[in-house]
C-alpha cells in the first residue's frame, strides 16, 4: 500500500472527470432517444415512438442489412490476411523486406481515411479499365476496401498475442514431424483462436462504422448505414438517429465486452 500513498492525490478525480467527458454525450444521446418531442434537445416525456419509426424506415433497414453483410465479409477476409501477417511478424524472424512489411501494416491504421478511400477508389477504377471489373461498385467492393483496413488491426492483435505465447508448443509439433503448414493449422491457429475472434470483432465494428472509405468506393447502388446516417445528420438532428445510435451503442458495447472477455480469459489461462 506504499504505492497507493505515493499516488498523486488528484489522479482519481482526473480519471473520473475524463470518464464523464467520454460518456456524458453518449448518455444524453441515449436519453433523448426516448424523448416524446421531435426536438432532440428539449425533454417532453418518455416515448418509444422513434424506435417504431426507425423500424418502419425501409431505407434505414436496407442500409443496415447491407452494412452488416459488408462488415461480416470484410472481417472474415481481414481475419485471414491479418492472422497470416501477424504470424509472419511474430514468428518468422527477420525475413526479407520485413521493415517494409511492418510499415505496410502500420500505414492503413494511421493514414487519414480520405487518403485510404481515394486510393481504394483509384484501384477499383483502374481495375475496371483493365479487366472490366468492378463495373458497378457494390457490396463486394466495399467489403474488400474494409478488409484492407481491418487486416492491420487483426495483425496487431494476433502479433501481440503470439509474442506473449510460448513458441515451444509449435516447435514441439515441428520436432514431432508435423509440416509447418500442419503445425500452423493444428497448433498455432487453435491457440490463437481467441485473438483472431477479437480481431474479427474489431474489424467488424470498424467496417460497420466506416463512412469515409465507403463513401469513396461505393457506387450509387450501395448505401451503407453510416452513409445514410451522415446524409441525414447533415440535414439536421433527428430523433430517429438517436434511436439508431442507442441500438448501435448497446450492440457494439456488447461486442466489445465479449471481445475483451475472450482476450482476458486467454491471458489468464496462458500465464
Amino acid at each position, binding site marked *: 500500500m506504499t504505492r497507493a500513498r505515493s499516488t498523486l492525490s488528484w489522479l482519481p478525480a482526473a480519471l473520473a472527470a475524463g470518464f464523464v467527458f467520454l460518456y456524458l454525450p453518449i448518455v444524453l444521446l441515449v436519453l433523448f432517444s426516448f424523448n416524446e418531442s421531435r426536438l432532440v434537445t428539449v425533454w417532453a416525456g418518455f416515448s418509444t415512438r422513434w424506435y417504431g419509426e426507425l423500424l418502419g424506415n425501409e431505407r434505414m433497414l436496407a442500409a443496415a442489412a447491407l452494412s452488416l453483410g459488408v462488415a461480416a465479409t470484410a472481417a472474415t477476409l481481414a481475419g485471414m490476411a491479418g492472422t497470416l501477417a501477424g504470424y509472419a511478424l511474430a514468428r518468422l524472424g527477420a525475413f526479407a523486406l520485413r521493415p517494409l512489411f511492418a510499415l505496410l501494416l502500420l500505414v492503413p491504421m494511421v493514414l487519414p481515411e480520405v487518403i485510404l478511400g481515394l486510393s481504394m477508389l483509384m484501384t477499383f477504377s483502374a481495375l475496371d479499365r483493365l479487366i472490366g471489373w468492378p463495373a458497378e461498385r457494390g457490396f463486394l467492393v466495399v467489403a474488400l476496401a474494409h478488409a484492407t483496413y481491418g487486416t492491420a488491426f487483426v495483425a496487431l492483435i494476433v502479433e501481440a498475442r503470439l509474442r506473449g505465447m510460448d513458441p515451444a508448443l509449435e*516447435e514441439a509439433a515441428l520436432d514431432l514431424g508435423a509440416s509447418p503448414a500442419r503445425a500452423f493449422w493444428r497448433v498455432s491457429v487453435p491457440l490463437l483462436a481467441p485473438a483472431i475472434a477479437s480481431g474479427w470483432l*474489431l474489424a467488424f465494428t470498424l467496417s460497420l462504422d466506416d463512412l469515409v472509405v465507403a463513401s469513396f468506393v461505393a457506387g450509387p447502388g450501395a448505401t451503407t448505414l453510416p452513409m445514410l446516417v451522415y446524409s441525414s445528420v447533415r440535414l439536421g438532428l433527428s430523433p430517429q438517429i438517436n434511436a439508431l445510435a442507442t441500438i448501435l451503442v448497446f450492440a457494439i458495447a456488447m461486442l466489445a465486452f465479449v471481445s475483451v472477455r475472450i482476450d482476458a480469459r486467454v491471458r489468464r489461462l496462458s500465464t
Partner: protein
Amino acid sequence: MTAPWAARTRAMFVGPAFAWLGLTVAAPLGLVFAVSLGEATQGAPPFEWGFSTANYALIFADDLYWGAFLNAARIAGTATLICLAIGYPMALAIARAAPSRRAILLFLVVLPFWTSFLIRVYAWMAMLRPTGLVNGALQGMGLIDEPLGLIANEFAVHLGIVYAYLPFMVLPLYATLERMDPALVEAAHDLGASRTRAFWRVTFPLSLPGVAAGCLLVFIPASGEFVIPDLLGGPDTPMIGRVLWLEFFQNRDWPVACALATTLAALLAVPILIADRLRARAA
C-alpha cells in the same frame, strides 16, 4: 526463440500476406500518385493519365489548398496537446490503480473507441447547437441570456478531435506507465524527492516513448480528419481532409484530389516513420 524455419516455409506464410498488402496498400497509394500527375476530363472516370506537375503547382499557388494544410496541422497539433494533458493523468491513474481494477478501467477507456465515430460526433452536435443541451443548461441556470456560438467553429473541432481520439492517447501511455518499475519512483521518494519532483524527473522522462506514440497516433489521423471539421467546424477554417473530400465529391477533380492526398501522405511520412520505429522498438 525463432523456430528453424526453412526459407520455403517462410515464403509460404510471408508470400500471401505480402501480396495482399502490396495489392491493397502499396499499389493503391502508388495509383493515387500516378493519377495526381494526370489531367481532369469530362469522361468516366473523369481523368486522363499524364505526366505533369501542374496539379502540385496549383496546390502551392492557391492558399485555399496550402492554407488548409497549415490549418489542419495547427488544429491537429493543439488538439493532440490537449489530448495529452487530459489523457496522461487518466493513463497514470489507471496504471497506479489496484491491479484488479485496471482491466475494467481500461475497458471503459476503449469502449467509446468501439462505438461509432459518426455517432460520437453527432452526440456533440446535439450538445453544442445554439438550441443544444449546453446552451440550454447555461440559460436554464441564468448564466447567459443569448446562446453561445459553440458549434461551427474551431473550438468545436478541437473538442471533437480530443473527444474522438482520447483513447488513442491513453492506451500507449498506459502501456508504458504500466510496465514501469514502481521501485524507481519509490527510490526517488526515499532519496527525498517530492511527489511532483519524482514525477517530472523519473516517471515522465521514462514514459516519453508512450507520449510520443500517443501523440503520433492522435496527430496523424486527426490532421486528415473529415467528419469532425465537416459536422462540427465552420467555413472559416478549412482543414485539408475536408478540402480533399470537396475536391473529389463536389469538383469531381480526381487528379487534384490525388495530388492533395499525395502531398498529405508525403507530409505525414516523417511522423509515420517515427511511429513505425517506436512500434518496432516496443515489440
